[in-house]
């Protein structure tokens, strides 16, 4: 049996299946949802196993994604951390980049560093930008430093020395000595986490890694021992932000790599489903209660970047983390987002959210403000009789009361206002989708929009119309889609190495060598961390972050290299020019430079085909629940046909005005659009662009 659990902010999801020996198909697919149990998140995991009545002794494979890292960061629940730097640079962490995104606020508050100044200590050493050691490190001062840290109650030490990305020798000497002197503390060096330049970003990454290291390690150990106690013979695999999994040992060493594991598995699931149903160009949208997340997959490729921040927004510079993360744009717009009107009588939706408690006004749990969910109820898009899977009877009185103040302010009816709320919410989401598509030079007409999460299906069709995406895909089991993705991911590690090199004939050998070095390193580390399943070999993918000589920002391209390690300079050059023109509308005659070498090492995990949805021969008429009036805004108000999604079968087709309801998914289909189900039960909505 193969099992995946995904610990989210509110719920812990479980998905499991086993494979039919004869057909090779998935024979059982079950899911369970339980409450997340902070701070002992592993409890929730065990609860989910219990709820699904699974016996860990039967597990062949157990994958796990968790928010434990991001939680510890955002709630500042890490340990007391110290930082060692090169002489002259202890304040880099505090000065940060000096920027003030809140341009016209002269009472700005700069984010505080995670390490206080008295715990930031400098050591004598220096490596120059060429990687030459100018001054060997003097480790004799470390004993006193460690003693002082110990007295201060420090539990973790981060080490980040100048230019360690190109030559980590001094840094390695320091951590070896620290680990000898302070075996009880977590000690992390920058070169173990990031080999990219930019000292502030790397220092912060290292400091944050150390800050959460003991917490994450403890958590993983608890999980391992509880699973073992329950009879699990193997070792869990841990979901990483780079859309791959790793072994638990590897995750313990570099826990910051789990920081975005939740969204990563959803994105991976989208890419994987895309391969199965032959939809390789996807715009991915995950709408939850508080936020919507989106990304773009081109030709089946997920974009992985190390340009990642937490707590960054248009007012706050946030904190950079240089770890490979799937590229995501996240905005404060979800089902619980609150609508409000400013002094210029302008209607806004979000980013404040009513969350799960008090939740939307219609929950009747004390929410007094209009949310996106309330507006969807008013418009008939959500069924009043099966609100929250039929578990809650909507409190329409509370809902109306919540609408009153805004209706008065804007002088309009409840329906007009509800349409406005949805339209603004959709606009916000469209903007986020534009950021990952048109703003990067992609034409949405070449893509399908795949939508999941609690609110994905509700809004996806309207968003697709706006963006002119021709098709929407809503996957089967879309509420636990992320956890499903985890069962399919490969063991993966990304190696990103800064080494500026001109792309010319003289450097061919150097370029080959650099990739070769990374490859050997990967092979060694995979062996050491037992990154293996069923003896499959390691496969490699090569990328390079490249730029025009003189520019700063880079474009990532797949680097043309053969299995034997031979490179095609001309092809690499042309690929870069093309990518640059694609992103930025022009190409230049300047020399081209590689800045970062990026190697992806993978061990492929066996991926069975998903189960096909059973065909019983039921007539489509018999899947109709009822008819009701649904307001489709610009498309008018219609009597819509409401279908029971659970009973719809492959091959069936239907048209809007319709709503397809499953216990945790509502797919709203405006007039003119056609829906069909594929063999697996995924919904495909063909968007008719009637506007033009």
């Amino acid at each position, binding site marked *: 049996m193969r099992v995946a659990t995904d610990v989210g902010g509110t719920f812990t999801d479980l998905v499991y299946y086993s494979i039919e020996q004869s057909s090779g198909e998935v024979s059982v697919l079950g899911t369970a949802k339980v409450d997340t149990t902070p701070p002992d998140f592993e409890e929730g995991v065990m609860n989910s196993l219990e709820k699904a009545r699974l016996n860990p002794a039967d597990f062949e494979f157990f994958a796990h994604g968790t928010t434990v890292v991001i939680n510890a960061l955002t709630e500042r629940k890490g340990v007391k951390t110290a930082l060692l730097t090169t002489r002259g640079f202890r304040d880099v962490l505090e*000065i940060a980049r000096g920027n003030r*995104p809140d341009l016209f606020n002269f009472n700005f508050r700069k984010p505080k560093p995670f390490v206080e100044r008295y715990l930031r200590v400098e050591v004598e050493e220096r490596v120059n930008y060429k990687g030459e050691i100018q001054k060997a490190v003097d480790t004799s001062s470390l004993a006193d430093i460690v003693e002082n840290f110990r007295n201060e109650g420090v539990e973790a030490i981060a080490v980040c020395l100048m230019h360690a990305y190109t030559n980590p020798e001094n840094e390695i000497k320091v951590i070896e000595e620290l680990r000898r002197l302070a075996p009880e503390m977590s000690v992390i060096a920058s070169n173990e986490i990031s080999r990219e330049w930019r000292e502030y970003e790397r220092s912060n990454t290292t400091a944050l890694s150390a800050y959460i290291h003991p917490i994450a390690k403890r958590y993983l150990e608890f999980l391992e021992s509880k699973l073992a106690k329950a009879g699990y013979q193997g070792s869990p695999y841990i979901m990483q932000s780079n859309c791959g999994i790793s072994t638990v040992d590897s995750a313990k060493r570099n826990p910051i790599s789990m920081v975005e594991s939740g969204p990563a598995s959803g994105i991976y699931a989208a890419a994987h489903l895309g391969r199965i149903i032959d939809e390789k160009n996807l715009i991915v949208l995950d709408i939850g209660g508080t936020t919507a997340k989106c990304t773009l997959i081109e030709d089946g490729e997920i974009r992985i970047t190390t340009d990642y921040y937490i707590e960054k927004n248009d007012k706050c510079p946030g904190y950079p983390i240089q770890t490979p993360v799937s590229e995501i744009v996240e905005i404060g717009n979800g089902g619980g987002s609150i609508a409000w009107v400013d002094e*210029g009588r302008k209607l806004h939706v979000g980013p404040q959210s009513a969350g799960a408690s008090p939740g939307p006004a219609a929950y009747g749990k004390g929410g007094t403000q209009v949310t996106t969910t309330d507006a969807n109820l008013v418009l008939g898009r959500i069924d009043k009789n099966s609100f929250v899977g039929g578990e809650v009877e909507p409190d329409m009185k509370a809902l109306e009361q919540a609408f009153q103040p805004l209706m008065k302010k804007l002088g309009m009816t409840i329906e007009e206002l509800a349409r406005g709320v949805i339209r603004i919410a959709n606009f916000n989401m469209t903007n986020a989708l534009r950021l990952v598509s048109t703003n990067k030079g992609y034409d949405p007409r070449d893509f399908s929009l795949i939508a999941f999460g609690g609110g994905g299906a509700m809004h996806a069709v309207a968003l697709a119309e706006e963006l002119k995406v021709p098709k929407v895909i809503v996957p089967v089991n879309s509420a636990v889609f992320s956890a499903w993705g985890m069962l399919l991911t490969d063991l993966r590690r990304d190696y990103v190495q800064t080494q500026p090199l001109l792309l010319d004939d003289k450097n061919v050998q150097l370029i080959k060598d650099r990739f070769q070095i990374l490859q050997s390193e990967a092979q060694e580390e995979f062996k050491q961390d037992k990154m293996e399943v069923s003896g499959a070999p390691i496969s490699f993918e090569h990328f390079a972050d490249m730029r025009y000589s003189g520019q700063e920002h880079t474009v990532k391209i797949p680097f043309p290299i053969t299995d034997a390690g031979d490179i095609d300079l001309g092809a690499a050059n042309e690929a870069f020019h093309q990518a640059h023109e694609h992103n930025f509308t022009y190409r230049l005659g300047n020399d081209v430079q590689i800045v970062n070498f990026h190697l992806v090492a993978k061990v492929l995990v066996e991926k069975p085909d998903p189960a096909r949805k059973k065909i019983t021969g039921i007539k489509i008429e018999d899947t109709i629940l009822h008819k009701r009036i649904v307001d489709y805004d610009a498309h008018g108000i219609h009597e819509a046909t409401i279908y029971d999604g659970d009973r719809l079968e492959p091959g069936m087709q239907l048209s809007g005005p319709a709503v397809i309801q499953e216990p945790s998914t509502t797919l709203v289909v405006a007039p003119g659009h056609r829906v069909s189900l594929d063999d697996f039960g995924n919904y495909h909505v063909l968007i008719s662009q009637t506007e033009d």
Partner: protein
Amino acid sequence: MSVVRKTGYENPDIFTMEIIKDSIVALGDEMFNAMIRTSMSPIIYETTDFAVGATDAKGNLLAQGNGVAGFLVTLDTAVQSLFDHYALDEICDGDVFITNSPYEGGGTHLSDVVILVPIFFEDQLIAWTVNKAHWTEVGGAQPGSISTSATDIYQEGLHFRFLKLYEQGRLVRSLHDLIRDNVRLPESTLGDMHAGVAAAKVGAKRILDLVSKYGCTSILLAMDELLDYGEEMTRVELEKLPQGEFEAEDLIESDGLGNGPFHIRVKVTIAEGRMLMDFSGTAAQAPGPINVSSSGLVTATRCVFKCITNPEIPANGGCFRALDIVCPQGTLFSAVKPAPVSLYYETDVAAMELVWKALAPALKNRLPAGHYRSVSGTFISGQHLDTNDLFVMGEPLAGGWGASYDRDGDSGQFSALNGETFNIPVELFETRYGIQVEQYSLHNADGGGGEYLGGKGVVIDYRVTAETAYLTYGATRGESRPWGMEGGQNGSHNYALVIREDGKEERYNMCTTVPVKRGELIRIFTGTGGGYGDPLKRPRQQVSMDLKNGYITTEQANQQFNLGV
């Protein structure tokens, strides 16, 4: 299948109008990203010394992309001045204009080059996209085109007054080649030029997309409504402000040529829904390059106005309809041709902080004590050790901000004139220029004490590796100090030291191309901000912690905070 009511957007309701307006505002960010990613110079991609935006056909600012605060709404005045040079029928689809004239709309100094792209729909001019960026090199007497020693504009570089860079889609070769052959780093300069054109075109395309979706009439209506919305939001805030007259004066020590100090004055009147800033009494324009032109003053005053009215909503032309500025011609804040202006930014940030100083006592929740009030532009040129290529390094420096009524000031932040300005990472810096940075730290010079501490300034050490490198640097507050509030101490100075081989130190507030030999050190300090409140009111436990953190010395702890250790 039911009947589809054909709706379209011919008669857009208020929400559709909101969406059109928000789409126009979003243009700013889209162009900003295009610019930052395509630029050739760190001064653009790290310092983000640029701004992008869109105006209506007449030059009213509709939206602007985050860059530096100091470029706020200089974009609209550029469009307005363009009409002094061209009749409407001389402006064609496919034209691209370029200007850097300091004395006209959009002007600051010659290094800041404005690119303007008119947008046409069915032969009607409907809008403009505009950007303004600091080019590393525009020629002139000194590398980097900035000096503290220029005595007129002609020494400061190439001067474009609203020239056509493209004519109906075709690059004007002669202008392109003229630029190429008159700057020191043509590859970089032309790269920046292309980035500017590309960014403007990204915006133009989006506006045309909106027109094709919602119709031209709706778009033009949305533009007007957007401006009215800005005006209304500002009016509401203006009424909440304390009414009356507020005055301040301050000084700028020197003009780089040894003249000074120069006094600067303002009287701010808030009454009847308007704000008047009167700079009468400010010193006459200086012989040296610290002058600000009227358009520079407009932008400085608008920044503070925005800060105290409504910093939340995106800036547009309507936000400033209630602001009046009075300043006689020919002062330090309203210099006329041929006054040199390359260090205008030092005076511009002083003008901004002057208004802030006048209002701070009445607006303690919005305005802290004085900050280091300087861009501290630092320019080092020379030959790269490895390649022997000429390099011109230019970067602003972060410093200390003032404390406010409820908290310590921020340390190591760029000036109020900056904004989304990033320091250049030392690891990139060293690779690019070969100069070794030996220290990038906060310092604990005397100053900024109080119940709440002024934020700390930084100290940065550049070790010269080229045979000879040349330092150009200019800052104010080399002799005066950032002002404290409510009994808080004044902050500390901005200045540069050149530390010679024999250990001798030379101190500069302003200098141009000072030769520094291999192995010698350039050390620059930025000031600590002003403190707030009586230092003796700071809790002892907090003072002990400051001492432990090294933010203050033992001596300061005892003498200023009476800690007794």
